[in-house]
């Protein structure tokens, strides 16, 4: 298990390769469909949200209010491919070093990862409890009223958050490779 700690660096991310299992500690920001479209259309980040050298987590958590703060009840990844039209631009513009999600992303994101020293980190979809246990604190939330709870930007402090590198900064994508291999296996069986 490779340890990744925020702030994340160009060198650190370029040292990773497809298949590496990592444990992430530090700050993550959530952002999913509405946030991506908003930023892509020129929206600005709210005060206190800085994505430079950071990791964006494709996640819409279940969060309950507790003692004047928040408690994350469940927080697994959502499907990333929906953000493919927006992700490359957001990596470039905001200086992301990593994107956590599930299901992988396409060629434009892969190219942005190569160009800007970013990786795609695959968390286990559906594993909302194991991943919520890694969230030690909710530091803040933006756009809660405007976008609704699942679509808001949650700032999370995490420890030992497990993920697998499935798209690296060297142009390799596990998803492309598995698609091609499974397609050729299927053709043999039709």
């Amino acid at each position, binding site marked *: 298990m490779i340890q990744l700690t925020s702030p994340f660096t160009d060198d650190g991310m370029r040292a990773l390769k497809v298949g590496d299992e990592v444990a992430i500690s530090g700050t993550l920001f959530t952002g999913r469909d509405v946030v991506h479209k908003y930023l892509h259309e020129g929206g600005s980040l709210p005060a206190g949200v800085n994505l430079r050298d950071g990791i964006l987590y494709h996640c819409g*958590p279940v969060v309950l209010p507790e003692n004047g703060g928040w408690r994350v*009840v469940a927080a697994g990844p959502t499907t990333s491919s929906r953000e493919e039209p927006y992700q490359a631009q957001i990596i470039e513009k905001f200086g992301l070093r990593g994107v956590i999600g599930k299901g992988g992303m396409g060629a434009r994101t892969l190219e942005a990862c190569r160009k800007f020293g970013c990786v795609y980190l695959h968390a286990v*979809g559906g594993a909302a409890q194991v991943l919520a246990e890694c969230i030690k604190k909710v530091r803040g939330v933006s756009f809660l009223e405007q976008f*609704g709870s699942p679509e808001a930007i949650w700032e999370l402090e995490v420890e030992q958050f497990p993920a697998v590198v499935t798209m690296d900064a060297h142009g390799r994508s596990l998803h492309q490779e598995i698609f091609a291999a*499974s397609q050729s296996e*299927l053709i043999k069986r039709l």
Partner: protein
Amino acid sequence: MSCLQDSLVELIRRASAEIPDDVQRAILGSLHQEKQGTIAESALKLIERNIELAKAKSQPICQDTGSILFFVDAPVGLDQIAWEETAREAVRQATQRGYLRQNSVDSLTGVNDGTNVGPGSPTIHFHQHRAPHTEVRLVLKGGGCENVGAQYALPIEALKANRDLAGCRRAVLDAVLQAQGKGCGPGILGVCIGGDRATGYEHSKRQLLRLLDDRNPVPALDELEQDVLKTANELGIGPMGFGGKTTLLGVKVGVLNRLPASFFVSVSYMCWAYRRQGVTLGADDSIRNWLY
């Protein structure tokens, strides 16, 4: 609060937090099949731990608590209007308690009012039966797996899928290939051959009420189910699309009549976090027994 409302809140809680036994057994079985030290094995171990943790903490297995689909078999004379109103209240309450995410969005305005109640949410399929008790089945189906569902209108030249069972097989396997890991595999397929665009999908979802280890009583469909399951697991897509031996845990196929002009094959993909539960209600609407 009514007894029915209490029963439905408990049904929602358990569906959201606890995987049915048949599914957990299948996931455990697949864990033993994957090669040690692979990322597929790591993913399944994490899934296994997640299942235990969700149950122990009585919290959602997956944060996407999904479309709320009730299937109600009720005696003749049930007041469906009152029942539906109670079910909506139960959904509101389950959401406040965190058993369900605030998961229902106005498609026109984008507003999420946080209640999970609105047009189409929850969805309730009522069906009368000649028995004195009510059976309620609930499926919580997340958006990731719903998005990889697919409907094929045969024939499809590009897939060489004609209007026969071999063509249905090609269509279903194409859905598996296209889904890769995006639906949170290892997955379970509900399939309907026939029907129209709406009834086809609905019937495909109804297949997800079957037990994983049951067998289809129609020999041709049983053969198709076993064949697709075996073939899909030879493709190497694996858990989460990480590569590996377990791509699907089950395939369930139903049939509806079709029009001469239409031949739909509708595929609903269910994620490993197969939230399906059911209860038989007593005369006072308390939970008499669990169905899964």
